[in-house]
């Protein structure tokens, strides 16, 4: 116990006053000075004096020494008393004598406590603690999974015992550090003289959300560990990730499902059974070995018979006592790609001179199958050759003119729900556009406005830049984040001037230039949408394509035109944590999410976003407006899993707990909270000693004649009093 060593130490409330100890040298200095100051007196009867001195010398010397010692001790004791010394002591403190105590019991009930019978053990221990309390003690129960409703110190011990019976291992890892801090705060508010902070649990590394070493606790801490061996990591396997990949682009093809299994123990695990479950049936199984502290991947190949959204899970069978992290839920869903037809109005053999050079790279940045947008490029004649209904979006990039047939097909495509992006360029003839695409254009074109050539040295003063965007527009919502002002530096050398829109035509200005000319306009036509980009998609009229904002803007623009939600489906959703889902205009009034165990959440979108959270692990289906087949949005449905932070059952590193009880200078901070120790103040005794020493000093230091006189007077006075 650290308390034992503290008990022996004397502590000071005002250690600065110890400097007063130097004053203890004063009587010695005065004594020496007085010796030098002795008055010289010629005296004839020196022989008799010497005889007397010889007889009295011893007692005088003793008296002088005693006097000197008394003075030195009195001053030293006064200095020490001013420094307010005290010792902490447990001795003499019987249970009955013990002062009323405020006890905060922190029970770890995070996910990790689901391991074996840890939770039962912990509640049993906490129950014993509560039983041992005396009626006037206050107690509070705190849980690491989060603040309960009645987290307060109370003398109603049965109420706390009742709360304890309801404690179960939660589905979230919890934050033990935060719970301990809460308990410390609660104790600090108590008026009772003694305070105890008791933590019952396994104290795994995973039960702390922030670094456990940063914790500081101002109260003496008692740890009741439920671990069998508090030194060694408890063996635990967990599935920490699952990824899946369609092997080919065909809609009905094989999927490769890869699960990552981590071993958090300190011993290798051999041949543990992993199985893949799709729907309700087990479709594959493998044995996997994981070295201590390492991860292993296990791969399943599965051919989906049903191309729709399918719930699946990977399980470790009978792997370890902590079962929550032995399962990983996920959805296998056919990829919902945006199919875009890009019409190149200004092709070139030199790749970067090609009109679509930047756009195609922005839409397909890496491997084709990884991108949610699948672009197809071609000349304007593809508008006649291809079945436009197989595309979600058509992009006209600097296309000079369209045939009447092409324009008609395009118009029909848009009216039936397709998306059209029209981008300007030096090939564009405004008059032809107005004539052929007038019913699609948000506003009629007027003519080119050329501000500067790209190589013009005076360009910086002539050009304009991208100006304010409609922040709430789905394309630009992402730029609301900090640093989202990156678009402001985009330079624009030329753009297409527009005429005013005919009356009654609904047009939305999504983005303008700094000189207030429109940059991006949107118009609803039939079921579809048309976006008009008044400058070029390549570097002819602007340097936008080489700016960081280009890629997200064009991708989001195409997703917007294709009516796809921006959310990237089932990334790692964690039980117990809120997350936001961008629903765009897919949800009109409310979103309904149904999970396992018939759980149901209904939320209303705010600015195209909904905030969700999962309470149980498993697949969650996302419905828009109505809970029916038609309302199901496969892209937004998700599977939730337990937080893998809790899987790390490693005990806290040695010294971490001791470190909690030290302040920045490495001193124990338990001084401020006596806990079970009594703080024995020493200064009152020292002051009494000082008083007695001064009294004795004045008696010893007084002239004998005076004392004799006083004594006589007292003796004489006695009969008179009697």
């Amino acid at each position: 116990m650290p308390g034992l060593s503290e008990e022996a130490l004397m502590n000071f409330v005002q250690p600065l006053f110890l400097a007063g100890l130097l004053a203890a040298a004063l009587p010695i200095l005065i004594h020496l000075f007085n010796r030098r100051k002795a008055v010289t007196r010629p005296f004839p009867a020196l022989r008799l004096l010497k005889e007397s001195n010889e007889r009295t010398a011893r007692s005088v010397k003793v008296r002088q020494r005693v006097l000197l010692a008394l003075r030195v001790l009195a001053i030293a004791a006064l200095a020490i008393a001013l420094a307010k010394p005290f010792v902490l002591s447990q001795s003499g403190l019987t249970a009955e004598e013990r002062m009323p105590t405020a006890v905060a019991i922190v029970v770890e009930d995070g996910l990790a406590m689901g391991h074996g019978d840890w939770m039962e053990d912990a509640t049993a221990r906490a129950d014993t603690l509560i039983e041992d309390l005396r009626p006037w003690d206050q107690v509070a129960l705190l849980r690491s999974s989060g603040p309960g409703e009645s987290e307060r110190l109370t003398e109603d011990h049965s109420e706390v015992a009742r709360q304890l019976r309801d404690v179960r291992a939660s589905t979230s890892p919890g934050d033990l550090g935060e719970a301990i801090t809460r308990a410390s705060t609660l104790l600090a508010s108590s008026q009772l003289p003694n305070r105890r902070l008791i933590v019952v649990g396994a104290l795994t590394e995973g039960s702390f959300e922030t670094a456990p070493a940063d914790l500081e606790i101002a109260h003496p801490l008692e740890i009741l560990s439920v671990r069998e061996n508090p030194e060694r990591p408890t063996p635990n396997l967990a599935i920490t990730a699952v990824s899946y990949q369609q092997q080919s682009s065909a809609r009905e093809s094989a999927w490769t499902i890869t699960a990552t299994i981590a071993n958090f123990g300190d011993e290798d695990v051999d041949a543990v059974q992993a199985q893949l479950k799709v729907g309700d049936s087990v479709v594959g199984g493998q044995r996997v070995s994981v070295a201590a502290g390492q991860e292993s991947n296990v791969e399943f190949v599965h051919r989906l018979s049903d191309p729709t959204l399918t719930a699946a899970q990977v399980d470790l069978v009978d792997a370890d006592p902590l079962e929550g992290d032995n399962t990983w839920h996920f959805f296998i869903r056919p990829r919902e790609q945006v199919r875009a037809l890009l019409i190149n109005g200004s092709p070139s053999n030199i790749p970067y001179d090609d009109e679509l050079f930047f756009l195609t790279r922005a839409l397909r940045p890496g491997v084709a199958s990884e991108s949610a947008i699948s672009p197809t490029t071609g000349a304007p004649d593809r508008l006649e050759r291809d079945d436009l209904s197989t595309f979600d979006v058509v992009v006209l990039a600097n296309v000079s003119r369209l045939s009447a047939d092409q324009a008609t097909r395009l118009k029909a495509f848009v009216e039936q729900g397709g998306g059209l992006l029209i981008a300007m360029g030096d090939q564009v003839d405004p008059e032809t556009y107005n004539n052929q695409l007038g019913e699609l254009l948000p506003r009629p074109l007027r003519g080119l406005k050329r501000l500067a050539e790209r190589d013009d040295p005076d360009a910086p003063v002539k050009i304009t830049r991208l100006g304010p965007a409609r922040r709430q527009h789905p394309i630009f919502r992402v730029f609301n984040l900090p640093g989202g002002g990156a678009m402001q530096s985009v330079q624009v050398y030329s753009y297409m001037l527009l005429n005013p829109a005919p009356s009654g035509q609904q047009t939305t200005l999504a983005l303008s230039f700094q000189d207030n000319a429109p940059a991006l306009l949107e118009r609803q036509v039939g079921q579809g949408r048309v976006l008009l980009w008044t400058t070029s998609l390549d570097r002819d009229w602007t340097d936008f394509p080489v700016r960081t904002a280009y890629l997200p803007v064009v991708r989001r623009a195409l997703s917007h035109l294709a009516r796809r939600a921006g959310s990237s489906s089932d990334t790692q959703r964690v039980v117990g944590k809120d997350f936001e889902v961008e629903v765009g205009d897919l949800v009109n009034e409310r979103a309904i999410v149904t999970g396992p165990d018939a759980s149901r959440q209904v939320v209303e979108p705010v600015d195209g976003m909904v905030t969700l959270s999962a309470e149980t692990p498993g697949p969650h289906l996302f419905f828009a407006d109505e809970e029916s087949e038609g309302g199901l949005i496969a892209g937004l449905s998700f599977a939730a899993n337990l937080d893998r932070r809790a899987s790390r059952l490693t005990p806290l590193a040695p010294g971490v707990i001791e470190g909690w009880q030290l302040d920045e200078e490495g001193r124990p901070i338990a001084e401020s909270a006596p806990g079970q120790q009594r703080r024995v103040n020493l200064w009152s005794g020292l002051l009494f000693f000082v008083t007695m020493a001064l009294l004795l000093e004045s008696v010893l230091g007084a002239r004998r004649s005076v004392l004799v006189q006083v004594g006589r007077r007292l003796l004489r006075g006695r009969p008179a009093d009697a």
Partner: protein
Amino acid sequence: MAEALRQTYLDPAVLDQLGDMHVRARQLAQGVIAGLHRSPQRGGSVEFSEYTEYSAGQELRRVDWKVFGKSDKYYVKQYEDETNLQTFLLLDGSGSMAFKSELGPLTKLDHARYVAATLAYLLIRQGDAVGALGFAKTPGAFLPAAARTKHLDDIFFLLDNLPARGPTALDDSLRQIAERARRRSLILIFSDLLDATEHTEELLRVLKSRKFDVVIFQGLDPAELTLPYEGLSLFEGMEDEGELLADPDDLRDRYIEAMRAHNARIKAVCNGANITYLSYDTTRPVELVCQDFLRRR
């Protein structure tokens, strides 16, 4: 010179008082004084004393024929013999006698000088022979006893030039006086007797046994009796006894006790040897000391 000395030591007022006292003393204790100071033998004296009527049996040669021629009566002219009383003044001139505290009006030596001078004056006026011996480290100047008035000047000179230095030589001086003085002499010792040892006491007894009449004047300073000092003090001996650093408060009781014991021992010796012992402190007026002496005679 003699006048100056008289001025120094003899306060006329004191002498007057003593004179009166002497007259009264003579009236009160005529017999004692007469018996002491008068020679028991008549005749052969050089100084005329008185006339008495002739009675049968007296020597005729003593009849004063001149008076017979004038008065036709036989008167016998009686002469006083030179008194056979010799008095010696022994004055201690050791260093300790120079001590004078804030409580004392005079040094012990000065006080003793006054007493000695006054008594010398009285004795010589009375016709006794007075001698003197000053002693300090060694026995000093010795004046044989003489009754001449002129002799008083020499005594005063001796007293005046007695140094107050060094250790005392009381024992040697007593031995010297015992050799030089006639038997039955009156020896007046003025000293603080702080250095009186058993040997001194033995010598006093010897003197007494040789029929010397010894009177001791022990003069002490009041400070020596009470040790009234305060605060840490470095006491220095006045006769090379070294020094002592002490707080008088610590020593006072024991010192006073020791001083009393010392004096009591001397007094006991004196009583045992039938020596007149006069102890006083320097605040006691000189005339009172003289009166004490005369009363004790």
